[in-house]
């Protein structure tokens, strides 16, 4: 059973079909790429999958369960987490607190225990503090834990977005242009980290990316979107060499 399957998924904004008739099947443990030119509808797919938008047609299944009309909160609780193309960190909170927000639903102490500092409060705060530090270590950010998130350099903000999403303990991680704004060295490092995350945290990863090196380097399969519809789909090598795809990327008039 695929971990994620979309069936004829689509959304229309006024007259614009931003996503139309999308079929994607992602197996557990896969690293899957979603690519396409600007405005192709990639981010809109993420917004559909995370409940920010409700589809106007079709549906999608997560772990066999139809969840197309759920709220963002319940979709996250089911096990899908995401990052944002336009970084959306909790800017006035520390780096580690951003990660702890990701753990929010794992904490089991009540508000009263938190206010009175009794019961499970101390033990769990310690436990998730350590877990948050471990996650930050994966991204080499353990020394920045106390910084204000908005004071981080751009590349690290992107990494913190991933760490925060991972803290919600998802089965499926959606990354929206994780390498945007990074230099080639940082991108290469990020590729390694993403692979490491998939292998060691038991996660399936669907990522949007414009950096073809990154896509061909780590994605096993890709779907190419163009004007909201699927242009090509399948093994990364095959798809990236498809003349249709090359034309769409370079533009028709040369």
């Amino acid at each position: 059973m695929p971990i994620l399957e979309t069936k004829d998924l689509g959304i229309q904004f006024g007259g614009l079909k931003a996503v139309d008739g999308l079929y994607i099947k992602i197996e557990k443990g896969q690293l899957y790429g979603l690519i396409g030119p600007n405005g192709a509808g990639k981010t809109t797919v993420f917004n559909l999958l995370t409940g920010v938008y409700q589809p106007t047609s079709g549906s999608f299944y997560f772990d066999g369960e139809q969840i197309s009309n759920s709220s963002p909160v319940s979709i996250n609780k089911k096990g899908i987490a995401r990052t944002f193309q336009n970084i959306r960190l909790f800017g006035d909170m520390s780096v580690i607190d951003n990660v702890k927000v990701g753990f929010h639903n794992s904490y089991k102490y009540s508000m009263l225990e938190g206010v009175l500092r009794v019961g499970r409060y101390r033990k769990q705060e310690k436990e998730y503090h350590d877990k948050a530090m471990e996650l930050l270590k994966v991204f080499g950010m353990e020394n920045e834990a106390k910084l204000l998130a908005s004071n981080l350099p751009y590349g690290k903000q992107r990494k913190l977005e991933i760490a925060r999403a991972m803290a919600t303990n998802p089965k499926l991680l959606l990354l929206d242009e994780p390498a945007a704004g990074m230099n080639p060295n940082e991108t290469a490092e990020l590729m390694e980290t993403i692979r490491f995350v998939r292998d060691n945290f038991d996660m399936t990863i669907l990522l949007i990316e414009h950096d073809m090196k990154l896509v061909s380097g780590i994605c096993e399969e890709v779907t190419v979107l163009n004007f909201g519809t699927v242009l090509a789909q399948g093994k990364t090598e095959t798809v990236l060499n498809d003349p249709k795809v090359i034309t769409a990327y370079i533009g028709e008039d040369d």
Partner: protein
Amino acid sequence: MSKKIKSRNLDKYITYSFLILIFVISQLLVMTGVASNKFEGLLVPISVYVLLAVSLNLVVGFSGELSLGHAGFMCVGAYAGSLFSLLMQNVITVWWLRFPMAIIIGGLVAAVAGFLIGIPVLRLRGDYLAIVTLAFGEIIKNLFNNMYLAIDKNGVFFSMNASAYTKHAFDAATKQDLIKGAQGITGTPNDSNFVICFIVIMICVIALLNLIDSKTGRSIKAARDNRIAAEAMGIDVTKAKMTAFVIASFIAGMAGVLYSHNLRTLVASKFDYNLSILVLVFVVLGGMKNMRNVIIATIILYALPEALRALNDYRMLLYAIVLIVMMLLNNNDKFAAFKKKLSIKALIARFNTKGGVK
């Protein structure tokens, strides 16, 4: 435990020590007779304002919502607490038993009011809360201003109409006025004092600082910083904002009880828009977020006009200068951001956003 948690605790203990220090000094000044009667008379009101400011700071500073009707919750609490004390005066004669009960009842009634206001409003995005709380404050004030409640041997009389009250044939021997329209509540036992105020402040500040530094507090701050990201992390944003708002209403209600038990007559006209705005000024000039700074700002800004009274005409001039200096000393971009949020243009823009997400 990590350094970070330690340093946060240190900051808390500085706040607690600061509060205790102020309390001890004030008590010493009063006990040794150094302080004037006027100074002594200011202690309870200042404490009440400190409670109002720290609770409003939870809403404005930590949950990022604008509330313009904090006086309304204080009013509800004050009336509920006073009514309780009036009715129980002869039933529970031990004041130190009755008064804490009155405080908690005032807080609870205000919290229920906060909950009822929050249900429809906090689901929405944008500054609807500002408008609704503004209306709430005015409505509550006018409601109590026109309310008549009395008892005699024939039962309870309740009316929102002054002439109905005048015309009503009361049994003069057993008649007891509870709420008498614009004349409010008279005869609330003067149970309030600085020691009790200090105890309530300490409990509230400890509870608030602990709350802020727990998973609940983090969810409140996350919902403030980025609503969409907070939801994507599985946080129920409405619940987070509701938690902050109800707790703040509870504390404002308790402040109202402390206030009303310090007066001979409680009138609703005291709890007007100006009072809500004054508390908001304390919070904003205290820099928002940091509780200790908000407390300091409240004490300075409340005590100053009183202390300067001797200077007569120059009083308000000096007060204005202090306000300006505090503004400049404040974290400037934060204040600018807040002002931006307050501007009418920003309000309109907020109502029109559709919430597209990239």
